[in-house]
């Protein structure tokens, strides 16, 4: 129980840091840490799959994406949006969200599920035995992220003439 509380506290701290940090890269890393902790929490609450996915998706992938985005926007111009779009898009999004909420609520209430498909196993088992293929994927994602950052922050040798 104490461990749980510590984890929660750590997660909140990491999240707060992610929001408050001025350096975007640090913020991204903080978010990753926060997600990682969330994954562990999931696992401890008896949802090993959710934990594994949380770690796969958020801690691994989203972080890479964030870093990539930061790398891209640092050098690129701001993306300008026109006024009509500024109005039209939120409106549309609102409508979409409303529809989504109502339909999804209706549907989610009715989503059938198979009996006895409860998640089971330890974190290690799930990660290593069941989802080991994803591990390779995660490695690859991180590798891709590293390579991307390398590529995007490379010295712009021989390319300046463009």
């Amino acid at each position, binding site marked *: 129980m104490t461990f749980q509380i510590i984890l929660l506290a750590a997660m909140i701290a990491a999240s707060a840091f992610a929001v408050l940090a001025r350096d975007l890269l640090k913020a991204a890393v903080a978010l990753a840490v926060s997600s990682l902790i969330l994954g562990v929490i999931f696992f401890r609450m008896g949802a090993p799959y959710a934990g594994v996915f949380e770690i796969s998706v958020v801690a691994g992938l989203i972080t890479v994406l964030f870093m990539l985005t930061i790398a891209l926007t640092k050098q690129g111009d701001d*993306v300008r*949006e*026109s006024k009509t*779009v*500024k109005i*039209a*898009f939120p409106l*549309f*999004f609102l409508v*979409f969200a409303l*529809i989504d909420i109502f*339909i999804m609520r209706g549907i989610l209430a009715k989503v059938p599920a198979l009996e006895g498909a409860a998640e089971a196993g330890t974190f290690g088992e799930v990660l290593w035995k069941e989802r080991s293929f994803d591990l390779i994927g995660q490695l690859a994602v991180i590798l891709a992220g590293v390579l991307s950052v390398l590529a995007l922050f490379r010295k712009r040798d021989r390319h300046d003439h463009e």
Partner: protein
Amino acid sequence: MTPTTLLWMILLPAFSALALLAVPKTVKYVRESLALVSAAVSLYLAFALFAVKDLSWSAAWLGSIRLELRLYQFPAFILLGLAGFLFLITLYSVVKMKDHPRVNEYYAYIFLSAALAFGAVLSDNFVPLVFFWEGLLVTLYALISLGGKDAHRTATKAFIISGLCDFAMILGIGIVWSLSGTMTISEIGLKPEGPAALAFVLMMIGAIGKAGAMPFHTWIPDAAVDAPVTFMAFMPAAFEKLLGIYLLARICLDIFHLEPGSGLSILLMVIGAATIVLAVMMALVQKDLKRLLSYHAVSQVGYMILGIGTAVPIGIAGGLFHMINHAMYKSGLFLSAGSVEHRAGTTDLRKLGGLAREMPVTAAGFTVCALAISGVWPLNGFVSKEMVFHGALETGSIIFAVAAWVGAIFTFASFLKAGHSVFFGKRSEERAPGKVKESPWTMLVPILVLALLCITFGVFNKLPLTQFIQPIVASHAEAGAHLDFTSHALDLFNLIAGISVACLLLAFGIHVYGFKRGGNKAYLASEPIHHAPFFKQMYDWAEKRFFDIYEQGVKFLQGLSWVLFKGIDRPIDAVFEKGATAVGSAFTGLLRKAHNGHYANYLAWALGGLVVIIALVNVLLK
């Protein structure tokens, strides 16, 4: 005589033509002798074949259609006539065409025409018939082109008009073929009813078009000016008449069985009568001898068509007899005109006069032929015209006989004017005395031969009628089984002949009146009629070629073409050229506007798409 002689009859002139074309221009005499010899051989062959009268030959040709040639009474006679004219005109050309720059072409075309004409006459199958018949278009075009600078215009005109007629005939043949199931002419005998009537009319157009009846005549007067005069004597005066009337007779007698008094018979007679009157009215006012003669060449066709159109034996016989007579005197007349042109250098009536003294032989020949064409007793024209009158009266429609008589009046009037202006009367001031001489003998012989033939066929008319005409008509059972030329009075002393003679006298009166009114100038003798109130307008219009089927037809073709081009072709092209491009760029523009580069926009599409797909999937699943 073996059947292959028929083929040689065609091939001989064809090969001669090639040989004549090959003779170099510098070599003298060879060409002329070659031409004369081969013409003579053709004539001999024709004689020989005329004696045989019954041959047929065939060979594999166009797939299952055979090249069938058949000789019997009628073709044999026409063949003889054609060969005779070929010889005479070749003889005449020896001098007349000597200095023509394209003389070897001239001979080649003449002999090619002869070959084609022989072929057309001998064909017993529609396909070779059309082959030879339409092939004459080429030589027609070529021969007219040999004339002056603008001759090619006339050549084109002649080509297109004749082509029109030939195409009509082809269509007619097609119908006949689909009705009868055979292309062999001697196996066909249709009643001209229903579609066959249409076929009859179409084939008739082909025949009378070749013969030069109205309204397919308009190239002939033009050709008279542009083309060599020997051509006029050869094609429009002789060959085309023989061929056209030959085919018309075959159409009316063999291929179809024309009933007297039937609608088609009336139609033919109307065409004949109209041709007689209208063409002779045009002839009357001409100021050029060759043009005048050419209009007569048209007018006389009317008599033949009228005669055959009556569908009664005497009329048909008259038409056929008139055909051969006309070929003689009209050739004679053209050749005399050529003789005048050869020496005097012009055929303009206004510049000629009193030539009888310098060119007595020519004048004599011309006079005989002119009298013959005018139907003066006892020349051949009188006899054949009488037969046509009889025929016309026998059908009961007097109007056609009247038209024929009116034609006779003006024929004589115009020849009085022509002969008077050219050979008699005062000598033209422009011409120095003694400068003009009589033409050489090779030119005179044909004229004299033709003149003599006119006299012979007139005086001893029983001879050609019983030897040539009667067997032809008799071979077509319904038409002339009992025709013996005794039932109708063909001498001077009967009512019909009396009317004819009265017509001639009237014509003389008209001429004298006009001569006096015109200040004793013979070429003005027709002016009173020319300037008569109604006639003047008509003549003016005719002068402006309002009635020229070609001029109007070309206008029509051009108009139609313009409409087709601007109204259909260009709009279709615009659809591809402009329409497709416009539609493409409109769509593209619309779509490109939507792609404005705004992320939110694109995101909205994606989310919208998701909603639509969810909805679609769910709707479709149920």
